[in-house]
């Protein structure tokens, strides 16, 4: 390569604008000269490209010449182009002339409030049909699948549940003990932590753990099955994806959630007991306080709430999974949607339960 850079010369000859391109016109040079060339081509009157000194021109260079022609808007005279460069230009003209597919302008986010609502109701309807027709399709509900999901969603989450529960109890007890101590009421920290754990925090925190660990996993699993046409394959075999994919996950989540909530409650109470012990209260006193403050209704109400949260998280995970679009990015979107949807639904449901329990006087 003697002269690796391309140059653009502009001159006026008898009212004709002549653009002289010389040197090596590759993708890099075309990029450098693009704006300049296109601007120069907008000159009124006839236009001539003098390509006599152009040693090399690739497809990007040819695209630049085509763009310049388009910018000029009228016929352009070529002089001095070698046969190969002229042929290249001809090919670029033809390739660039294909009519572009008109696409609706893309917005960054389609905000459509109704669509997910309608989709959610449709999903609930399909789920109801799957449950009602289960006796006929009992074969499609594979029990080993349920155990596998229960293991994945529950058993493997136990260490995390224990850790978070213990820390939560510890923090709650410590944070509330400091102000309560000023009133000499720090013994009642046990009551406070026990009630809030059993009634609220146990189910809520377990649902958040389930949404983060399992709801997203359900969405990603079903989503990649969808992308890989496995869901289509099920339908084409007249197997119902609701019964084969969604129901086992839903049942597994409903089975493991009460156990997770109970584990979290116990771990939290242990955390609280640790703090109380450090403050000098004997464990017997703490236990007595917990017993007097809570009833079995609190515990079972919490476990029931956990079960409802679990089914909501699992259902939303499966629904976003089945709604996965095309391509690998869609799987990630589905997983994100499952976590967000699961947590939002949990908190909504929790509000409903608060209202319900209050009206029922529980």
């Amino acid at each position, binding site marked *: 390569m003697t002269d690796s850079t391309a140059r653009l010369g502009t001159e006026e000859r008898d009212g004709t604008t002549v653009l002289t391109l010389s040197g090596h016109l590759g993708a890099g040079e075309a990029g450098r000269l693009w704006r300049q060339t296109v601007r120069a081509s907008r000159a009124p009157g006839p236009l001539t490209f003098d390509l006599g000194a152009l040693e090399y021109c690739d497809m990007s260079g040819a695209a630049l010449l085509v763009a310049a022609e388009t910018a000029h808007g009228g016929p352009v005279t070529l002089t001095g182009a070698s046969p190969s460069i002229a042929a290249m230009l001809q090919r670029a003209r033809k390739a660039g002339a294909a009519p572009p597919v008109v696409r609706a302008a893309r917005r960054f986010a389609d905000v459509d409030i109704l669509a997910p609502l309608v989709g959610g109701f449709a999903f609930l309807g399909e789920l109801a049909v799957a449950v009602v027709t289960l006796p006929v399709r009992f*074969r*499609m509900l594979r029990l080993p699948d349920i155990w596998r999901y229960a293991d994945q969603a529950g058993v493997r989450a136990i260490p995390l549940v224990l850790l978070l529960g213990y820390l939560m109890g510890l923090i709650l007890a410590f944070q509330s003990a400091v102000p309560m101590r000023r009133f000499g009421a720090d013994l009642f920290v046990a009551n406070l932590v026990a009630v809030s754990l059993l009634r609220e925090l146990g189910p809520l925190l377990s649902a958040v753990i389930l949404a983060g660990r399992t709801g997203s996993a359900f969405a990603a699993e079903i989503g*990649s*099955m969808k992308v*890989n*046409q*496995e869901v*289509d*394959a099920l*339908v*084409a*075999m*007249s*197997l119902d994806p609701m019964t084969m994919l969604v129901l086992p996950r839903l049942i597994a989540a409903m089975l493991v959630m009460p156990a997770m909530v109970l584990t979290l409650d116990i771990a939290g109470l242990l955390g609280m007991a640790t703090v109380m012990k450090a403050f000098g209260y004997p464990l017997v006193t703490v236990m007595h306080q917990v017993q007097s403050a809570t009833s079995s209704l609190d515990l079972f109400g919490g476990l029931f709430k956990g079960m409802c949260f679990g089914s909501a998280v699992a259902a939303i995970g499966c629904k976003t999974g089945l709604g996965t679009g095309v391509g690998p990015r869609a799987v990630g979107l589905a997983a994100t949607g499952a976590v967000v949807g699961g947590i939002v639904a949990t908190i909504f449901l929790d509000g409903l339960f608060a209202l319900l329990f209050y009206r029922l006087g529980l």
Partner: protein
Amino acid sequence: MTAAIHVEGVAQRFGTRTIFRDVSFEVPTGEVFAILGGSGCGKSTLLNQLIGLLAPTAGTIEILGNTTTGPAGASGRLAMQRQIGVMFQSGALFGSMTLLENVMLPLEMFTDLPPEGRESVARVKLGLVGLGHAAFLMPAEISGGMAKRAGIARAMALDPPLLFLDEPSAGLDPITSAELDRLILQLRDDLGTTFVLVTHELASILAIVDRCIMLDRNAYPDGGGTIAIGNPRVLRDEGTHKMVRAFFRREIPE
């Protein structure tokens, strides 16, 4: 001979875009039928309509005596799907099961075979596509061509009278591809199985396909449709449409 598939005036629109319209054809029982065309002409769309994954925007489809379109199409689709086998482009094997379990799944769902019976049947099917040795491998551990063959084994699990194969020999080496062609002919001759293939492999088309439909996305000024139906060897020698000639004789249309 009765028709296994009867398609009348089928169309598909997505929004304002017409993929194809007025597609009509019949596939007699025991025929190897192919859907051909350049990429983007709606071959896979037509296949999805046939196997009941996509409802056409117009027209009727009747498969093995079941009408699968229109208001009463849902029950017809279910009845039809019980009687067909489908191999998807990538195999679409269930990732959490071994190849053997993949082939056993339809047997488990739709037959009363005891577990050991299911396993022997599934092993025979895997052996037919040359995967007897890979029965206990997971789909993630095998190559694309093997996944495709396992997909065919699963589609054949219930010995359906009608098999849909989406690009069965794409990405296979010439030897395996030729073996697959022979298997298709064998099943057609011995069991009277009807085949519908979506394929690009010219050699395979000329070797085994009895009749084919060619779609093109510029068949009409406003969208795609049918440009030819007939025997591929005849179309190769006597086809007049420029895209038919382009396809069979590799002429670049001007």
